[in-house]
C-alpha cells in the first residue's frame, strides 16, 4: 500500500518552479535536431510498413511471413506511440509543419484521433489518477485502485484485463463511449450517437484496410496477409497495453481523491503527476519503441515537450524529486508489469478478504 506523500504549500510551489525552469530551458532549445529526429522516425515507420506489407504478399514462405509481420508490427508500434501519441500531444506544434500538427494528426489504429485528444490530452493528463475523474483508472471496466468500491463484477478482473490486452485497439477506440455509464443507466446510447458514428467510421476503414483490401490484393496469399495483419495488430495491442499499464498502475503509484485535489495549485499538479506515474528502465531502442512512455514521469510533467528530450532531463527531474522527498518510481518492465498483474488479480477480490485499507485510512469495501 502506498503512503500518501504531501508537500507544504511553499515547498510545492518551489518544486513547481524548479520544474518550470526545466521546461523553459528545453522549449528555448528546441530546433532542427528535434524535427529531424521525428522525421527520421516517421520515415522508418513508413518504410517498415511498406516493406512489411510487401513481404506479406509472399507470406506463403515462412521467413517472409515472419519478417513481414514483425516489420508491420513495428511500424504500427512506432505510428501509435513514438509518433502518434507524441505528435497529438502537440509536442511538435512549434515547427509549424502541418504534417506534425497535433490537432489534425490521425493514426493507424481504430480509435478516432479527435476522441483520443479529448480523453487523453485533456481528461487523463489534467485529472491524472484522480479516482472518479480520470477514467484511465480502470478504463470503466477494470478495478485498478482499492479506492474503486468492490463489486461482484470485478471477480472477472483478470479476464477483462486479458481481453482488453488482446483487443486493446478496440478498447481504446471505445473509451469515449463511456460504456460503464451507459450500463449504469446514467446516460443512454442515443446520447453517444455521434461518438459511435465516428468510432464506426474509423474502425470500418481500419478493418477494411487490414482484413479485406490488402488480403484480397494478395490473391492466393490472402490468408497469409490476413493472418499477418491480425498478428501485427495483436503484437501492437499487447506491447502498447504492457507499456501503458506500467504508466500508472505499478506498486508505488498513488491515486487521489476529488477532495484532495480540489484546491490544487500548479506545484500540486506537478507533484500529483510524479506520484501518479512510474518509469521503466531500458536502453535507447526500448525508449523509442515505448514511445518514451518509459519516461512516464517526465511525460506527465511535460506532456507537450518532444518525448526524445525526456531521457536527457530525467536525471535532473530525479534529483529534484530526491531533494524534495518525492518518491521517483522506476523499474524494469518485468518487475513493474509483474506488480500490475498482481494488482489486477488482488483487486478482483474484496478488501475484507485482503484486510486492506483505502487511501483515507478507512476499511476498504
Amino acid at each position, binding site marked *: 500500500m502506498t503512503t500518501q506523500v504531501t508537500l507544504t504549500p511553499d515547498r510545492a510551489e518551489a518544486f513547481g518552479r524548479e520544474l518550470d525552469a526545466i521546461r523553459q530551458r528545453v522549449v528555448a532549445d528546441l*530546433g532542427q535536431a528535434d524535427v529531424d529526429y521525428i522525421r527520421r522516425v516517421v520515415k522508418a515507420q513508413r518504410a517498415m510498413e511498406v516493406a512489411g506489407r510487401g513481404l506479406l504478399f509472399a507470406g506463403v514462405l515462412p521467413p517472409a511471413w515472419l519478417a513481414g509481420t514483425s516489420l508491420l508490427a513495428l511500424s504500427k508500434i512506432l505510428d501509435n506511440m513514438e509518433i502518434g501519441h507524441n505528435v497529438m500531444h*502537440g509536442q511538435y506544434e512549434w515547427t*509549424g509543419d502541418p504534417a506534425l500538427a497535433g490537432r489534425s494528426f490521425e493514426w*493507424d489504429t481504430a480509435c478516432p484521433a479527435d476522441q483520443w*485528444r479529448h480523453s487523453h490530452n485533456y481528461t487523463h493528463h*489534467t485529472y491524472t489518477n484522480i479516482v472518479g475523474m480520470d477514467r484511465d483508472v480502470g478504463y470503466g471496466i477494470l478495478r485498478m485502485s482499492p479506492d474503486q468500491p468492490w463489486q461482484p463484477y470485478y471477480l472477472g478482473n483478470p479476464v477483462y484485463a486479458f481481453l482488453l490486452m488482446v483487443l486493446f485497439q478496440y478498447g481504446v477506440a471505445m473509451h469515449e463511449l463511456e460504456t460503464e455509464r451507459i450500463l449504469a443507466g446514467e446516460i443512454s446510447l442515443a446520447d453517444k450517437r455521434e461518438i459511435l458514428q465516428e468510432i464506426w467510421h474509423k474502425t470500418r476503414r481500419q478493418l477494411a*484496410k487490414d482484413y479485406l*483490401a490488402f488480403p484480397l490484393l494478395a490473391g492466393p496469399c490472402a490468408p497469409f496477409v490476413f493472418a499477418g495483419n491480425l498478428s501485427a495488430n495483436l503484437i501492437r495491442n499487447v506491447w502498447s497495453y504492457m507499456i501503458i499499464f506500467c504508466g500508472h498502475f505499478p506498486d508505488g503509484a498513488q491515486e487521489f481523491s476529488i477532495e484532495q485535489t480540489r484546491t490544487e495549485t500548479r506545484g500540486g499538479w506537478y507533484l500529483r503527476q510524479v506520484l501518479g506515474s512510474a518509469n521503466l528502465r531500458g536502453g535507447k531502442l526500448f525508449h523509442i519503441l515505448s514511445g518514451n512512455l518509459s519516461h512516464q514521469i517526465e511525460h506527465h510533467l511535460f506532456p*507537450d515537450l518532444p518525448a526524445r528530450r525526456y531521457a536527457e532531463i530525467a536525471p535532473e527531474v530525479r534529483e529534484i524529486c530526491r531533494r524534495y522527498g518525492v518518491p521517483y518510481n522506476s523499474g524494469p518492465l518485468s518487475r513493474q508489469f509483474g506488480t500490475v498483474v498482481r494488482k489486477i488479480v488482488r483487486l478482483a477480490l474484496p478488501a475484507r478478504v485482503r484486510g486492506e485499507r483505502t487511501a483515507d485510512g478507512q476499511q476498504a469495501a
Partner: protein
Amino acid sequence: MFTKTLTPTLTEKVLRSPLVDLLTGPHGVDHYTELVDPMWTADARAKVVDVQRRTPRSVTLMLAPNPAFEACRAGQHVSVTVEIDGRRRTRCYSPANAAGAPLIELTIGIHDGGLVSTYLHRAARPGMVVELSAPAGDFVLPEPRPRRILFVSGGSGITPVMAMLRTLRAEHYDGQIGFVHYARSRDEACYYDELAAMPDVRVLHGFTRSPGGDLSGHFDRHHLAAAMPHPGVVYVCGPPALVEAVRGHCGNAISESFVPAAFATPREALGGRIRFRDSEIDVTDDGRTVLEQAEGAGLSPQSGCRMGICHTCTRRKHRGAVRNMITGSVSSADEEDVQICVSAPVGDVDIAL
C-alpha cells in the same frame, strides 16, 4: 488536387484513387510518396537548383517547381515557406522570371534584422526544398499590351517589374518601355547588367546613398519625365514612400508596396482591443486570458485543461501580440497559433474565434 495537369496520367489516377486512399490510410498517399521524393506530392513545392549572390545585399534563387505548382503571371507574388532551425517561416515574394519560364527566379533583398532574408542569404543552397502557395495579386500586365509602359521600382521591388519586362521582351513587344530603378548604389542595383544590355529599353538608375546614376537622389517628377514624358501606363513597386510619391504624380499608376513585416511588441499591455474575428465581436482587454475574455463576451471556445498543457484551446492569432502567462514569452508575428487559456493580449489583437 489536379489544378495544373489537364489530363491526369494513369499513375496519378491510381495514386489518387479511393482504393489507394484506403490502403495508405489514415495518412494518405502523399506521406509515402514524399518519403521517396519530397517533390512528389499534391502540394506545390520547388527545389532550389541554383543560388547566386549577385549583389552584396541580395540572393537570387532559381527554383524548379513540381507539377502541382500553378504558374504565375508576371508581376504576381507567391508565399514561400522555408524551414529555419526546425520552424517553418512563410514570406511573400514576387518571382522575377518571365511568365512561362521553366524555373522560378526569386531575388531576395536582405532586411536588417529580418529572419528569412538573412537566413536565405547565408544558407540557401541547391537541393533545398521549399513550399509554395498558389500565385496571387493583381499587379499584372493587361491584354492587349499598352503601347507605352513605364516601370518604376525601388530596391527589391524590382522583381515583379523585371518579370513583366522579361515577359514583354519574350513576346517581342514592339512598344516603348521606360525603366526607372532606385537602389542604394551601383553595386546594390539588381539586374544592372541585364538592363544595360537592353538597347531598346530606356533605363534610368537613381542611387540614393551614393553619387553617380542617371537620376539624382530620391524620386521626383523630373525623373518620371526623363524616363518617359507621356507613359500609357505606369507600374510602380517598392517601399511605401516611393509608391506614394509616384502615385502623387500619376494618380492612375498601378502599384504594389513591399512592406517588411513588423516584429516590434507594443509596450503598453492593457486596454487594447481584442477582435474575435469569426464572431465579429470586439472587446476591450482587461488583462485576463484570451479564453476568459472570450467566454466573458459570450463565446464558448473549445478548451481543456485551462493550464497550457493539453493544446485543446489553441487558436490562430491573426494579428497583434500575446504573452504566455506561464512562460512570459511573447508571440508577436502575424498568423501564429497560440494557446488562449494561458495567453493575455499585449495591445490590440485579432483572434480566430
